[in-house]
């Protein structure tokens, strides 16, 4: 088993929490994990990405080789496209559809959606709307994690378990909201992928 994931977004959007949940679930399943993060200058509202590699064999490189990534999981639509050179032919691109506009020349969103739909295995999820329904826009990153769950190669219950551990300090209410976000995200992806 091997899943190479690029997590994408804008500095401050919470991709490292997604990485932490998947990483912990992978370790609990005795898998090897390596996860390269971006710290420093780009975190000031710039494009950020994280390479997350999970495997039942030891992982050598901290970076995913171009053209061989199994999934791009993005919390922002334009950012999902920034890394398509890494995606393998059969890889999945799963992204939040809600743009994060902090630049003047942000392109026409429909053009972005068009490019995303050009990728055979792609899912556009309105994670912000789902998150708002679940209780807070802040959990839209976990909605996206839920949307990717069927393609991660990791037990769903392990993801739930690591959410409990990671958000445990913040109290039961926050844990429950994140678990709901995870489940609702998963369902939203299933509806999309059949339609």
């Amino acid at each position: 088993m091997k899943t190479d994931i690029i997590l994408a977004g804008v500095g401050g959007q919470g991709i490292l929490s997604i990485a932490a949940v998947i990483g912990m679930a992978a370790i609990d399943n005795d898998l090897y994990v390596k996860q390269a993060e971006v710290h420093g200058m780009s975190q000031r509202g710039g494009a950020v990405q994280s390479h997350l590699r999970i495997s039942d064999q030891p992982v050598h490189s901290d970076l995913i080789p171009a053209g061989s990534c199994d999934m791009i999981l993005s919390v922002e639509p334009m950012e999902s496209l920034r890394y398509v050179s890494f995606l393998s032919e059969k890889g999945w691109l799963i992204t939040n559809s809600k743009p994060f506009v902090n630049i003047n020349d942000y392109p026409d969103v429909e053009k972005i959606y068009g490019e995303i739909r050009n990728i055979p295995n792609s899912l556009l999820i309105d994670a912000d709307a789902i998150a708002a329904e679940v209780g807070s826009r802040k959990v839209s990153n976990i909605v996206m994690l839920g949307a990717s769950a069927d393609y991660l190669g990791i037990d769903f219950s392990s993801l739930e378990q690591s959410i409990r551990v990671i958000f445990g300090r913040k109290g039961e209410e926050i844990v429950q909201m994140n678990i709901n976000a995870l489940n609702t995200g998963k369902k939203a992806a299933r509806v999309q992928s059949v339609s």
Partner: protein
Amino acid sequence: MDKLVLLGDEAIAQGAIDGGISGVYAYPGTPSTEITEYIQRSKIAAQRKIHSEWSANEKTAMEAALGMSYAGKRALVCMKHVGLNVAADAFINSAITGINGGLVVLVADDPSMHSSQNEQDSRFYGKFSMVPVLEPANQQECYDLTYKAFGLSEKYKLPVLVRVTTRLAHSRAGVIRRQLLPQKETMIPEDHTQFILLPAFARKRYRGLLDQQPDMEADAASLGFNMIQQGKDRSRGIIACGIAYNYYMEVATRYQLDHPVLKVSHYPVPTAMLQELADSTEELLVMEEGYPMVEELLTGVLKTKYRVRGRLTGDLPRDGELNPGVVARSLGIQVQEGRDIPQVVANRPPALCKGCSHIDMYNALNEALQPYGPGRVFSDIGCYTLGALPPYNAINSCVDMGASVTMAKGASDAGLRPAVAVIGDSTFTHSGMTGLLDAVIEQTPVTVIISDNSTTGMTGGQKSHATNRLLNICKGLGVEEKHIIEINPLKKHHDENTQIIADELAYEGVSVIIASRECIQTASRRKKEAKK
């Protein structure tokens, strides 16, 4: 033993804690910052009263660590690559004084300049000062080599330099801990002249350092940090330094390559190992993150019978960090490229946060400078450097920490009026104060704006030595009181602030404008924590 999932930086920190340090000394700098932050948060470190307060700059950090070592305890000093330029005087001379308690100098290089002004390679500093250099390849080695480096330092009675690069510093993997070692007792050096580098003493000590070199090389062959991995395909021998080993192994596993490999994690690289690999293979391919240091060592300037390839020959790119793709290509493998990035994707460079005080400062400064035209604002390193980008286009230089004040002075000496310096609060106490003193002594016409957000913002909001001290520091340095002016950079004060700056630009002497308003990131973090 415990298995932890740690960043390379965190593994170094845990290795140092478990290795028995009594102090870490550092100034923040990407990609090294998380080492000290981890120790600041660590419960064991708190129990052991390990010193972990930030230092004013890398030089003060290096010297304080040397002082702790003098007193017999183990100390770690951390910095980014350019920080070692600031600490270089202390560092190079610490190789002459030698150490008492184990001293490890951790330097994190930033090839590809993700967050830096250059991509200098700190291994050269190791060679320059003639101390051993360790270069881990993965997170476990970050832990293990740091843990063992203190013993190595005490064995030679020399500082040991540990070098990592951005990818390893900021990538996470599982790490297994070793036994927690006891801290050392306070104990002054046996030889009371060891640290006195008067020429007569220094000459003797330098001879000693030279005499140690063969032992250091022999250890690099025998301690096991360097190793030769056998391989059947002798058409090529691979020399893989530090993290480059991972990229080679990634490619070798995927494409079933089986070349002999010299894995290098300990310098000076033993000649015998290089010779063995060179004589048993048809050519050498050198993979190193940073400058082609080992490649240059092998090729020198004269032609030899050995064929050596690497960054100098163009088989690998001359600049930038390595990755599995460039490593595969250097091995003659056609890598499958993924899709092209669609043209609609726009750049999203880092930017000043909404509501940042630097924005209001720049708006006022730009307006005040309007009558004079562009090209006269010397700036420095920090979030405020983003004032270089549109829509501000407010600054004309960013060179090294502190250079804003001194470059403005030099330009003013050359007749440029007004000459303006824009510097952050933490950068000012890092190395702006001394330059300001130069200007005060000569009454050089410069306008210094200290954009004070009361934190070290760019590196994530560490405490700033400058907070609540700027006014007194400037007074103490001798700036005339009526030309030290505090302003509040808020939109509603724009006109008033513009006028104040305009008045000071016209003044033929030193003026300092302290524009203070808390960083909105640290402010919101503080509010969140207060709620808890």
